[in-house]
């Protein structure tokens, strides 16, 4: 187990380092932040002084060294615009994004997996057709458009839910559905195809021949095996929910990290961009490690292999 985990961790640290370096370079390619916020009639001297204060006049290698030292100390400097510590700015919005991502993930699991199983065991039936149609539509629809349609129907026309903003549970419903839309459909399709493949195996027929209840056959024998392929996808989906919530957060005025990064990019607020992207990179890496570890529990063959 440790032999498997340690190289994986080292590899992950290298990945984070590369991502962080790319972010450093990329954020400096998008332009000069001082130009974005200097007063219209600011003198060149004043602009230079502001660049100097932010260390933008140092050689790039010095800036990079300072940046890496800051990363190691979790000190990313202050946001250029709010003048608050960048880490505080991002971390204060992290919970909102995690909340939204988890809600969407729960929806993906709660809808995608059961509907996929149902579609597989009733292959060719009307529920299967409806499920496939739903999957097709959900995957074809861009989430910003889906979000606006949901707002129009449930908030404007029916008045059941608020249009946007963060408040109670009711505020979470529409953004979570919007964010989960693609993932639900993809999960449903993967579950369905995985189940169909597993259901055609001999051991399923054997289990049925032994007289096991259909529920036991489906849940214990078929679904567990079908899930193996799904776990990787769900892991990546969970990571993507966090990173990909930007558009949904903008449409639903959800005060999360995604929207902060979106705004920071347009304002060229380097410290915020760097913290935000670093967090997303770490999140991806952690999820990948967890997915790897989950194989050990789901597939005895992998566990035996790694123990050997």
């Amino acid at each position, binding site marked *: 187990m440790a032999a498997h985990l340690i190289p994986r961790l080292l590899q992950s640290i290298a990945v984070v380092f590369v991502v962080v370096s790319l972010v450093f370079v990329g954020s400096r390619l*998008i*332009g*000069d932040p001082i*130009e*974005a*916020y*200097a*007063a*219209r*009639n*600011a*003198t060149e*001297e*004043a*602009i230079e002084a*502001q660049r100097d*204060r932010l260390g933008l006049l140092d050689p790039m290698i010095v800036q990079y060294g300072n940046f890496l030292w800051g990363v190691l100390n979790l000190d990313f400097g202050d*946001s*250029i*615009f*709010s*003048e*608050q510590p960048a880490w505080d*700015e991002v971390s*204060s*919005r992290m919970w909102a994004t995690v909340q939204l991502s988890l809600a969407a993930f729960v929806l993906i699991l709660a809808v995608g997996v059961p509907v996929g199983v149902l579609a597989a065991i009733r292959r060719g039936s009307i529920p299967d057709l409806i499920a496939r149609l739903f999957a097709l539509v959900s995957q074809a629809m861009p989430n*910003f458009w889906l*979000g*606006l349609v949901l*707002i*129009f129907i449930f*908030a*404007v026309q029916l*008045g059941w839910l*608020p*249009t*946007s*903003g*963060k408040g109670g549970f009711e505020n979470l419903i529409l953004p979570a559905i919007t964010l989960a839309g693609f993932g639900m459909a993809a999960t449903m399709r993967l579950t369905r195809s995985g189940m169909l493949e597993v259901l055609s195996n001999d051991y399923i027929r054997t289990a049925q021949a032994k007289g096991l209840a259909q529920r036991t056959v489906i849940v214990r024998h078929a679904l567990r095996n079908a899930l193996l392929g799904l776990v990787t996808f769900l892991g990546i989906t969970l990571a993507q929910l966090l990173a990909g919530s930007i558009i949904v957060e*903008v*449409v*639903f*005025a959800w*005060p999360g990290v995604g*929207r*902060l990064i979106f*705004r920071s990019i*347009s*304002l*060229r607020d380097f410290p915020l961009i760097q913290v935000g992207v670093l967090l997303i990179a770490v999140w991806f890496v952690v999820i990948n490690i967890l997915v790897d570890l989950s194989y050990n529990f789901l597939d005895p063959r992998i566990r035996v292999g790694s123990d050997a």
Partner: protein
Amino acid sequence: MSRHWTKLRRTKLSRRSLLSASARAGVGAAGLALVGCGGDDDDDQQQQTVAQAQPEQQQEQQAMQQQQQQQAMQEQQAQQQQAMQQQEQQAEQQAQQVEQQEQQQQEELDRATAQEEAEVSEVDLDAEIIVGYGSFPPTLDITTAGGGGGQGASNNLHFAALAAYNSGRVIQSEGGFGDWEFAEDLSSFIWRVKEGVTFHNGEPLNAESIQFYWERILGRAEYNPDFESSLRARAGWMGDISIVDEQTVSIAMDPPFVDAPEQSGGINFGLLPKQYIIDNGDEHFANNPIGCGAYQFMSWIPDQEIRSQRFENFAFDHDAPFQWKAGWAKYITGRYFPEEQARAAALEAGEVDIAYRISPDVAAQFEDRDDFKVIALPDVRVMALELPVNQSLDPITGEENPWRDVRVRQAANYAIDADAIIENLLTGTEERAYSPFPAGYDPPIGNLPGQYNYDPDKARALLEEAGQIGFAFTITLPTGLWTADRIWMPAVQQMLNDVGFQVEVDYADFGNSLSLIRNNEVPNPFVFNQAGVSSGAPLGPAFAYRLVTTVGSPYSHAQETDDFLPEFEAFQALIDEANAEFDLQRANDLYYEAAVISYENAFQVPLFGLPHLYAVTPQILYNEYYDTSTGLNAIYAQKLKA
């Protein structure tokens, strides 16, 4: 209470006056023609003198001929007079029709405003007005870079500045927070603040507080010399700041600085309380702002909501001049909806009363509906195509720069039918621009001879004459900030192509192109919203030309080292002189003189002023408008009782 639209109507150039003038010009021309005929009479007298020495027969024949000629001339004169009278009558009829139309429009406007005025008594003073904004500040300290961007949701409400804008240029105004004057030798600039004014926490506004305020901006305040204010560059002209008496402060100037009033008390210079900041620190202040504005801060959920309450001890009432008016609603809540359609949906769903700054297509959803209305407020700036006239060689081709030829520049002006774009692609409320000044500027630049009204044939002819048919160039359009930019720009491009240009458009990211333009790294024509002046402002251009494409203005092709055209040199000299002129009237005259040069030489292609659009519920009344770039100010919004 002033009403913006009424004001606009009054300051608009009357079409009747134009038509009457043209009719008079027609009469004048005909009169000149008659004088010319009179000249022929003199010739006739000379001919008669010569004729006396000739034989009688010849004399008779000549007399007959003369008679015939005279008759013919008289008939011609009569015809001319008749045509002239007809022309005059037609012009008069046209003028009358226009006057009737204008009267009708004015009556409709009066009826509308009278109705709104009557409803003012129904204003709910305990109401909460919820405004859906498209942008929110990341911090609430008005003097920081992030806080400076929070005008609508925070700054306008919580902070008040020393000076007010009433004519596009900051002036000291009666009944405000104070008044200013330059020392006679121009070595210092003096602010005297009104007595008895307090901040929201009860701290007095006095000389000590405004001295601290500027010292803090400049990084000289002892409590935190490291404080970084985005206003520091603007306040860089300030020398020593000394207290003269309890309410008076003197700022040393070396050299004299003509913009001292604006760059010490203008709209971004919201006043802050000294002791509160020293006691609580900058970070606390940025999250819990205290000012002396019409509303006091209540709460803030970053990126979500800012709540404010009417400041009952505000120094002014509803009838105070300019921006210094007390608020109507008891509470104002700003909510953040970055996505425009979501903002509109929030209005539809009854979650907000005002959807702030929406595009024409979203505004169209609310037009002609009983349950909503659209408010259009004009921007103080004018969209214009800036032409690179100051480079002798085209930086792209390395050949002679075609924009140096006035005919090419005029062709670009004649090519664009701004009226059609306004009518068909925009809302119809935009103002056609003839110069960097908006249409209401007095004296109207539209009075200049030879307006570049749409004339594609003339444009093509000019381009042909200049040998530039097929002249290819790219226009850079910074996108994402200006209303409907991707709608009207293709039309401009097509119109230019129709007369013989070959135009490509670079739809560039706003932030990036802003910095490129600022660094003089956009050698090709670009679109920008230049200038900024109040409608009907008597001293308008003073502010306007600070931003116009001259050396020293931030968004300009012109650089000090450029190879100036002689006409541009004259233009630049006038601008430089005006910028340093302390006498506002004199500065105004200089700006106008410069404007004429700019216009006649077609240094740019002015397009139109884009309005700011807002959708509101019918309960919201909005009668106040001040010509600053802040747009709708929720302080002046009234919510009627249910």
